């Protein structure tokens, strides 16, 4: 739930090469550097193993009987789970055309055989480093800068895919829209740093009360959204109640006498609320209810209730 980039303890490196002497040498050299090395003796086996072991990096020979390295590269780049895995071509060919083809097909690097182990290891480290930075950037693009929760565009994507899963399997999905009550007053009375502290504090409370597979985001301004996966109304409501209570009890250093509360609108995916728009509208309507009924409370969208006109 809390976004993080996991660092592999022993990154898996997959070697695809038809020459046993090369496989053996690479296994010894890379294992000594702390990599978990797997090997495949031809292209088909290589693609299969890549799918099965999801390696951090692939070392790929070009000239192999049957499926050659270029074909393997094309296949890998078409597979969503593997298209971003860095591939270093390790080939006996020093033909510039082969180098260009390999790099244009998406290889991260191209090393000629015979190879120098010191150089190869440095290139492996470099490819892994670049890959890690790219993942970090991709992740940062999905995060809210202030709170560290997911941002809205990522949340919308996830909500869409969870609703798809719900339609297929009936797995329950619940959506909560959460809004800090009278937040503008905090900003106006104590300044924006105090307002930011409240946003961050609320985000921390939300993050600590959710399960690992729930998704929380800053939806915009002082509004947050929570996607409860595999949770029915009762379970989601219980989590929201814990969040509500903890927020209302929190004492803020910048304004100890001024407590902060939030209102929550909850809607569960159902035949009536099966699209993202319908579910968000239902949760928003419930949130409006909670505000109307005095704030600092949770309201649930009722399936039987007529939809708002629109």
């Amino acid at each position, binding site marked *: 739930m809390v976004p993080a980039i996991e660092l592999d303890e022993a990154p898996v490196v997959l070697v695809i090469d038809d020459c046993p002497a*090369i496989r053996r040498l690479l296994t010894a050299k890379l294992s000594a550097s702390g990599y978990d090395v797997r090997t495949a003796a031809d292209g088909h086996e290589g693609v299969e193993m890549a799918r099965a072991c999801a390696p951090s990096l692939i070392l790929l020979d070009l000239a192999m009987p049957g499926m050659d390295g270029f074909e393997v590269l094309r296949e890998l780049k078409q597979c969503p789970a593997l298209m971003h895995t860095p591939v270093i071509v390790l080939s006996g060919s020093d033909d510039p055309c082969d180098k260009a083809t390999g790099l244009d097909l998406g290889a991260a690097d191209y090393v000629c055989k015979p190879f120098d182990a010191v150089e190869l290891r440095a290139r492996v480290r470099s490819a892994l480093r670049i890959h890690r930075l790219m993942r970090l950037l991709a992740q940062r693009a999905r995060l809210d800068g202030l709170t560290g929760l997911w941002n809205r565009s990522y949340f919308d994507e996830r909500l869409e895919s969870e609703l798809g899963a719900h339609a297929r399997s009936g797995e329950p999905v619940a959506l909560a829209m959460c809004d800090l009550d009278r937040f503008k007053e905090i900003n106006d009375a104590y300044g924006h740093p105090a307002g930011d502290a409240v946003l961050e504090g609320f985000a921390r409370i939300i993050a600590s009360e959710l399960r690992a597979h729930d998704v929380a985001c800053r939806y915009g301004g002082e509004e947050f959204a929570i996607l409860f996966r595999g949770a029915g109304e009762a379970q989601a409501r219980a989590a929201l109640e814990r969040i509500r209570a903890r927020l209302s009890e929190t004492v803020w250093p910048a304004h100890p006498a001024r407590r902060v509360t939030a209102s929550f609108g909850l809607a569960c995916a159902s035949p009536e609320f099966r699209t993202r728009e319908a579910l968000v509208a239902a949760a928003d309507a419930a949130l409006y209810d909670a505000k109307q009924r005095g704030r600092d409370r949770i309201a649930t969208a009722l399936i039987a209730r007529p939809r708002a006109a629109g």
Partner: protein
Amino acid sequence: MSESSDREAIVSEFAGDPDMLELVEFFVGQMPERVRQLRQSFETGSLDELRTLAHQLKGAGGSYGFPQISESARRLEKQSEAAEFAEVRRGLDDLIDLCNRVRM
């Protein structure tokens, strides 16, 4: 070429590296089988197979500290593409000679 220089042993550039000892041993130990495969592919006229064997030795030789083998194998790989019998024969003899002289 005199008999003595011809039979001079070729030692891996990594001979002094304890991490490479076992690996070089493995590579050297493979040589008789490699030579047998090279001869066989030539004698049965399997030029494709000969080219593959040469290609692999090109990649592996220098990686195990035997750049002479990579160089000779690179020539044989090229020659076997042209399929000039005499040239291939010469290239093959050169590579086999080197392979036979490889020592720990």
